[in-house]
């Protein structure tokens, strides 16, 4: 039986939401904590604190959206699970829909922009 995607993981759905940023970063492959911080800063310009990072990692792991790989010394890489991929795709789809509507309205190609004063 096909399962519907789980409900969105991010509490706010904002682009700079730590869980969303972590899932997006892991979409390109497993990473350990510091590599996550560096990648997130590179693609999103957001500097997460270590406490915020591991708080989000803990929640994501508890919900089964990411999984820990074997420890390598003092680091432990995390990877996206199948459920995590579905949730990420769903969250990005919702954001894309909002981006599309906003872009159309700003360009005036959407009739709803008629009420906006010049």
């Amino acid at each position, binding site marked *: 039986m096909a399962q519907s995607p789980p409900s969105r993981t991010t509490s706010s759905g904002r682009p700079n939401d730590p869980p969303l940023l972590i899932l997006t970063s892991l979409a390109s492959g497993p990473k*350990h*904590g*510091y590599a996550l*911080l560096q990648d997130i800063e590179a693609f999103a310009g957001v*500097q997460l*604190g*270590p*406490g*915020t*990072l*591991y*708080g989000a*990692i*803990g*929640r994501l792991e*508890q*919900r089964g959206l990411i999984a820990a790989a074997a420890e390598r010394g*003092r*680091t*432990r890489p995390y990877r996206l699970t199948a459920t995590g991929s579905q949730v990420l795709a769903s969250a990005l789809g919702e954001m894309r829909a909002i981006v599309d509507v906003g872009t159309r309205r700003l360009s005036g190609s959407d009739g709803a922009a008629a009420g906006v004063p010049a």
Partner: protein
Amino acid sequence: MNRVVLGLLLLLYPRAWRARYGQELRHVIAQTTAAGRSSWRTGVDVARAAAAVRAKALGIVGAGVTRQDRAIGGCVLVLWAWAAFVVAGAAVLKTSEHWQGAVPTGDRALPTAAFAALVTAAGVGTVMVLGGIAVTLPRVVAMLSGGGWPQIRGPVLRAASVTLVAAVWTLGLAVWAHRLGSVARNGGNTLFGGAFVGWALSVAVSLAAWTAVASLIARHIGLGRRLLVAEALLAGAGTCAMAVMSVAAVVWWWSVGRVAPGVFSGASAATPVVVAIVLMAGSTCLGIAGTTRAARELGLV
């Protein structure tokens, strides 16, 4: 970041969380600070995140636990609010010395009524809190009889230790105060003033330690719905008492300060007033948040 500071920061997390993520977090903190990130910002971030992890573990915030856990979390939040309010009460006590003598007879009606309301609400609130503890006693006894002592032994021994320190400090301070004059006891002796602040902190830490024990026990005794509803109602009544006390205290201070401004002037009198107002307001807000959470999760509102 200094190793001692880092170790203290990690202690803010629950033990189980530290066992799982502590080493990784320590390593990442070392890497980020070595890369030039501000140590104090990192420290604030870690402390805030630790508080969030603990609050979620207690069921005070978050939706990741059962409704029962969230209801218990709400009641526990009210308990913590009450503990902070007791500290405020100590500050109120400090400012309530000899105020009747300073206020003219014709102006005593309002401050007397406000002070009476404050004391009455304090009594009611205390009865509510003791009632909340009393209704859980059979479950606590059952938990201990069923081998639950190891789960709470550590925190109980810690609380007992800090209470012993506070008790010894109280005795020492009382003996010292007995040998000082009124002026020295009320800001004239810097050393005594410092010792007094230390004593107040030791009592506050002791109170926090026992509140932590109560919070831990609440998670282990498995309250049924009927008991939870009783706890939520008692928590609500306690919160109402805190609100009444807050208003009564402000009215009392204002009405006394209006006719006898000298009573609350100077650092030794004004500081406790400010501390008490901040604690009372914060505690009442926490109490409202906790009561609302418990009531919602139990379907009472």
